[in-house]
């Protein structure tokens, strides 16, 4: 068995750190291969992400996206469900947010629009997760398959809507019209002018994301529903014995998960762009899987993992700008290594670490009994 065998700090700090180091090491080799200095690259990534106000702002901005999608994956994971549909749910959630903004932006101030936008995003995201959830609960169609399919369906619906329905007359860009001030979340640089955040679009959605983290923590570890979700995820037989309906929990969990993913549009649509854009999700929904895995499905871990990925996104952009031979594609390769080692190869170092600790612990116990 895996978790629980090791001291907590090993599980939550040492192993992710080892995975990350391995990812950076291999990425470093790639940088060497194309004839650049990996240490120089690291320097530029760190400077780009943390070295100046605007960089920090962008890092936080990207991190906000990852928090929403990471939470979505984590919530589903606690109930033993693997929701890969964060991308599509975020996309459709963005539509809900945009509809609320388009309806209200010219009548009321932004803080009146805000609750409607949140509701719209969560409802639309949840609705998009509902059909896969229902199929899983009632028909046993695996959510991994159905949610992936629904990502494609979402993408194509949005192409249709943006280029045929929502596009303003005379415009050549497949996007909705720009929202008025009543449909725009304030950017942090206007709220906190004393902080130097440059031109970065980091906005109030950051705080919505943090509130969502608290919400998820309370839900999972402090409510009856969360208890039932975790029971189902940890031992479905025991859950049934305890009178927990797998059907009900599966559907509710997916709705919450989809709703959280749907809120990602608060940052991108209502926050940064002030309009609904084609492909605004840009893969953030998928990165959420890596974020949740790396953050051990815990809100605090997810915040940390989101910051890391935010740093890589922003620092990577800076790196591509400063060292032109490391192109944008190289940055994606480096990010992919992090996802590969932190996510897919999560158990790469575990057996060795477990063996090491077993020997260490047995040796110590042996000395005590001697």
């Amino acid at each position, binding site marked *: 068995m895996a978790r629980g065998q090791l001291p907590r700090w090993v599980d939550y700090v040492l192993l992710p750190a080892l995975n990350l180091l391995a990812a950076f090491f291999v990425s470093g080799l790639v940088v060497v291969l194309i004839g650049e200095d990996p240490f120089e690259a690291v320097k530029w990534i760190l400077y780009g992400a943390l070295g100046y106000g605007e960089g920090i702002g962008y890092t936080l901005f990207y991190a906000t996206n990852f928090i929403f999608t990471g939470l979505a994956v984590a919530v589903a994971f606690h109930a033993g469900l693997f929701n890969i549909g964060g991308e599509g749910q975020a996309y459709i959630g963005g539509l809900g947010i945009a509809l609320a903004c388009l309806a209200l932006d010219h009548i009321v101030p932004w803080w009146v629009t805000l609750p409607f936008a949140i509701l719209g995003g969560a409802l639309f995201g949840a609705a998009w997760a509902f059909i896969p959830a229902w199929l899983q609960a009632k028909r046993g169609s695996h959510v991994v398959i159905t949610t992936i399919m629904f990502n494609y369906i979402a993408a194509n619906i949005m192409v249709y809507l943006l280029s045929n329905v929502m596009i303003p007359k005379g415009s050549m860009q497949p996007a909705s019209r720009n929202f008025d001030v009543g449909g725009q979340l304030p950017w942090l640089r206007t709220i906190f002018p004393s902080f130097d955040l440059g031109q970065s679009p980091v906005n109030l959605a950051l705080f919505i994301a943090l509130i969502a983290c608290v919400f998820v923590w309370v839900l999972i570890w*402090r409510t009856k529903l969360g*208890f039932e979700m975790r029971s189902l995820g*940890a*031992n479905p*037989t025991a859950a049934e*014995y*305890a*009178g927990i309906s797998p059907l009900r929990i599966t559907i509710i969990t997916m709705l919450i998960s989809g709703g959280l993913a749907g809120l990602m549009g608060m940052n991108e649509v209502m926050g940064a762009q002030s309009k609904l854009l084609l492909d605004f999700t840009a893969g953030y929904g998928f990165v959420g899987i890596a974020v949740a895995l790396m953050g051990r499905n815990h809100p605090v871990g997810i915040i940390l993992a989101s910051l890391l990925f935010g740093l890589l996104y922003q620092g990577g952009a800076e790196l591509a700008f400063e060292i032109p031979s490391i192109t944008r594609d190289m940055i994606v390769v480096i990010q992919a290594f992090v996802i590969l080692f932190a996510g897919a190869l999560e158990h790469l170092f575990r057996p060795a670490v477990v063996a090491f600790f077993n020997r260490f612990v047995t040796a110590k116990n042996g000395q005590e009994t001697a």
Partner: protein
Amino acid sequence: MTERLGQPQAGAAIAQSEIPAIELRGIGKSFGPVVANKDIDLVVGKGSIHGIIGENGAGKSTLMSILYGFYGADTGEIFISGKKAKIPDSKTAIEKGIGMVHQHFMLVDTFSVVENVMLGAEGGALLNKGIAQARKELARLADEYDMRVDPDAIVGELPVGLQQRVEILKALYRGADVLILDEPTGVLTPAEADHLFRILEVLRDQGKTVLLITHKLREIMHITDTVSVMRRGEMVATRKTAQTSMSELAELMVGRSVLLEVDKQPASPGKTLLKVEGLNVVDERGVRRVKDVSLEVKAGEILGVAGVSGNGQSQLLAALSGIIRAHTGQIEIVGHKLDLSDKHGAAVMREYGMSHVPEDRHKMGLINAFPEYENSILGYHGAQKYSKGLTLDIAAIRKEAEERIEKYDIRPPSTELQVAKFSGGNQQKIVLAREIECDPDVLLVGQPTRGVDIGAIEYIHKRIIEMRDAGKAVLLVSVELDEIRSLSDRIIVMFDGEIVGERGPEATETDLGCLMAGVRDGDQPS
């Protein structure tokens, strides 16, 4: 009921004197702290049908897995035809002439019979030669052993009995001299089982050796020449089938643990709290597991359900506790009449005053990854006293868990420790505390002392008696005869899903042993 399909052939007796086909010496195997096989000796004569009988979890399958190379033994030696053998994997086992027919078939449903038979023995990159050879060989085997199967039939479309035949053919095609069959009749209809036994007899008469793993006594009596009994990882006896009886085997399987003294006054039963009528449970494979069971448990009495495990007791408990839905029948619990159309589920049953200590605490009663205090509310997590507004009242839950730890002497006394890290006895106490402290009217208890140390056994028994004396109706399912006899006020015996008899607690072990072997009142013991 007592006639045999065929008497052991004379050839079998002669074979006994030769070098044994299989000999195991001192085989031991542990999985972590669990000892699955302990110092096992076994001699299987050439050309005989040798049964290995024991309850679920007695270690039969582990032993066979060692012989077939799935597991390596921790200790001991294996001799095949008198030669010492090392069997690191099943490929080696096959090379040494051992074939296995698993309980769950290892067949590709969408392949034809001939494709399945040659799977893993294709003999080259191109299939045409292999297919031709497999076809020829199949025809030969069909003639020799009278096992006809259409070589081009799709396996998934064949009835289960024929699928099993394909498995046997597969083993023979690979040159098996020793055939291991693991619970072969579990999935078969009686007619198919008879057919299988005829095939096994032909195989034996042609000089093959058959090892039959089962927990069904009747099969052992029907078909085997020799029988070995396993109990809790040990080989407790080997008998010539002709010289033993079902009731002796049943007793050997269940075993006599140390007789435990239970202090108990005569029961004073009150009104009926649990009444079951004509209950039938059909599993997902369509097999009837519980057949027309009717029973009554009154307030202030313990009704013991005895029987060799796997005779429908688990399904009975699951149906009564609301985990699975019965097929037909009616359950009346504390005045609430439930039939199949009613709202169902474990939560509903708890609401009506039923609590349930399940047979398998790891799979069902506990969530191993959760800390103690979270397990102490499992199933009752919706109760008002555990909630505070929209959230769970963690402080109250912890406080109550601490009180229970104190009251039930659960060690170590930690509410935060993962349940997996408690010993078996303490885990069982956690479950028991939860199911007793909710003050139910009806208590279902399954195998309350399985894998529990002596001290805890006594404690658990005392608690169960206390529940009875407090006027609760207790239904106790156990495979431990002593436990049943010392706790119950009335005993019913289940065999093959049916209740075959009822006795008082003074019933003798032999008497109960006969019932457990399926010999009904009025029948002559075999």
